[in-house]
């Protein structure tokens, strides 16, 4: 990775982002190619699982992961745009472009997973089922997409674009999307693992933590993974406020995640036995200790907190850990079979298909294509 500074010539910057774009396009071609081949060959059979009980699989995990990261990134950008926190100015533009990139990656996966995505475009807004959290989610995501696009359009190749008042709405929508996304699961009284008023708050903290992880990673990527290449104000943000915020959000995530696991293990309630299974899996511990506790320690100790490489490591661990815990949450909530009789297993097995993995690759590729193109051609990285 070439060392980048804001003073490097535009052509060098361009090369850096062009390389990123080419790599992202390759990823998109691999994931998207496989997905399209499967869709034309077999339909969407591979993305959906079975009527035995796992109705939302890795595709929905991927969609929610990208959507909530996008919402979190818009919230981080709002710290400057809405609240005027000058410190966050250097990362606000990057966060907004990343928010759009994540949104496009996530929504593309949702479109491929849904049975009739095009009908959703008119049937959801026109039928006004206000009791459904998904109705609100679709509505909010639609308006959020439009407003975010307007904000971004206004800053294309304008390095000195100031705070945008429209960001008040974008930030508010991002907050609402996160809370409603939590309610989609939290309102399900028939699924005890999901049920609870705390789930929207859990989602809020996770989306903010995830957004900080992506901000850390892509800011370092832009600066050649070295604090030495950063502008002084960007560097002080990463060695000060942002690192502390990151540590606090990781700690809150740890408390909520471990707390729910302990409560689930203690309870005898039907449906919560899935926690026994989850906690017995190595993935649970990799996520909790390796991808939450370890980054927390890295971000708490002064020596590692201000070290660029340690920050990058912490951000990567958090990104992976968040994906694992979202997977455990969404799949785990469906694993106890409902009314399937004795010959159904105690817990439904689930392994993502190749097609579902390809959707994840597609989302990563597409999001990176959007970001890298914006950085290369649209001035997404003209600051900090």
């Amino acid at each position, binding site marked *: 990775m070439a060392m980048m500074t804001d003073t490097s010539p535009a052509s060098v910057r361009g090369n850096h982002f062009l390389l990123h774009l080419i790599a992202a396009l390759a990823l998109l071609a691999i994931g998207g190619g496989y997905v399209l081949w499967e869709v034309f060959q077999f*339909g*969407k*059979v591979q993305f*959906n*699982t*079975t*009527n035995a*009980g796992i*109705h*939302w699989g890795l595709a929905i995990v991927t969609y929610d992961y990208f959507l909530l990261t996008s919402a979190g990134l818009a919230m981080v950008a709002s710290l400057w745009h809405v609240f005027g926190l000058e410190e966050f100015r250097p990362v606000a533009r990057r966060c907004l472009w990343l928010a759009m990139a994540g949104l496009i990656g996530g929504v593309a996966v949702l479109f491929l997973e*849904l*049975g*009739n*995505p095009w*009908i*959703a475009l008119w*049937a*959801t807004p026109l*039928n*006004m*089922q206000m*009791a*459904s*959290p*998904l*109705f609100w*989610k*679709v509505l909010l995501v639609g308006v959020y997409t439009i407003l975010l696009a307007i904000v971004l359009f206004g800053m294309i190749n304008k390095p000195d674009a100031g705070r945008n008042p429209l960001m008040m709405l974008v930030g508010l929508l991002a907050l609402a999307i996160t809370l409603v996304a939590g309610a*989609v699961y939290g309102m*399900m*009284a*028939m*699924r005890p693992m999901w049920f609870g008023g705390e789930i929207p708050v859990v989602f809020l903290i996770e989306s903010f933590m995830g957004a900080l992880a992506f901000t850390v990673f892509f800011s370092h990527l832009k600066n050649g993974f070295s604090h030495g290449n950063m502008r002084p104000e960007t560097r002080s943000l990463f060695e000060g406020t942002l690192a502390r915020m990151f540590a606090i959000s990781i700690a809150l995530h740890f408390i909520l995640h471990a707390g729910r696991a302990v409560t689930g293990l203690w309870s*005898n309630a*039907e449906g919560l*036995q899935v926690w026994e299974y989850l906690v017995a899996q190595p993935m649970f511990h990799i996520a909790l200790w390796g991808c939450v506790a370890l980054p927390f320690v890295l971000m708490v100790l002064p020596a590692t907190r201000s070290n660029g490489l340690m920050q990058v490591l912490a951000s990567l661990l958090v990104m992976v850990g968040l994906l694992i815990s979202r997977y455990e949450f969404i799949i785990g909530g*469906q694993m*106890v*079979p*409902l*009314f*399937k*009789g*004795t*010959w159904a297993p*105690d817990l439904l097995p689930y392994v993502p298909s190749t097609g579902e993995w390809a959707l994840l690759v597609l989302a990563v590729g597409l999001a990176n294509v959007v970001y890298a193109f914006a950085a290369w051609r649209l001035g997404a990285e003209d600051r900090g």
Partner: protein
Amino acid sequence: MPNWGMVIDLETCTGCQACTTACAMENSRLPGENWQDVLFYSEGEYPNLNISWLPRPCMQCENPSCVSVCPTRATYVDEGTGVVLVDWNKCIGCKYCMVACPYGVRFYMDEAPVVEPDVREAFPARGRRTWNPPFRMPDEYEDPSKGIGIQPSGVVSKCTFCHHKISQAPEGVADLDEDNPETREYTPACVRVCAPKARFFGDLDNPESKVNELIAEKGGVRLREETGNKPKVYYLSGGGSPVVPGSRSRRG
């Protein structure tokens, strides 16, 4: 308007699955994807073993969570019959209703076949139909806006209480009974074929109906009352044991 409901007498049911088969034929279900099924439960180990079974259609809830979660109102309560139906023209295949149904009675076709070989390949169809079953209801009965007929891909389906039959019933009848020649044709397929007569179908709002009499006199119970869904399917269990053992209690 009648408020159709069902009573299933578990002390009479033999678990023969005739209802399941009749439903599959009537509603062109794929093998293994049964709107109506009989679930078997075992508790304990031989020789201290208890086996029970539970015929399980859609509960046609009074407070259906599948309706309130559906973002497009594709799932709705039919005004004429009180039955919960799916409009296949509006369903986007988000499967939220499947996640939100406490009774696990909704079905999506875009999946690997439950039973091999895949009959969809043996009986391929053109157009919206996903397959062309050799047995099926007359075409004029099909109504995608009510989720009746051969299920297309990308949408969710569920038991309709044989809406195409019960909606034609003469006005004001208290029960749809296969033993009554006047109502036989309008009786749901699963009720009509039940040899030991373990299933009863009638108007829950009519004080004269047999279903109301059975619920009152034999102590009809509904499944998973704690969800507040208020099923319109009642079980007569003789009061001896819970209708369905929880999977934790089965494990001991």
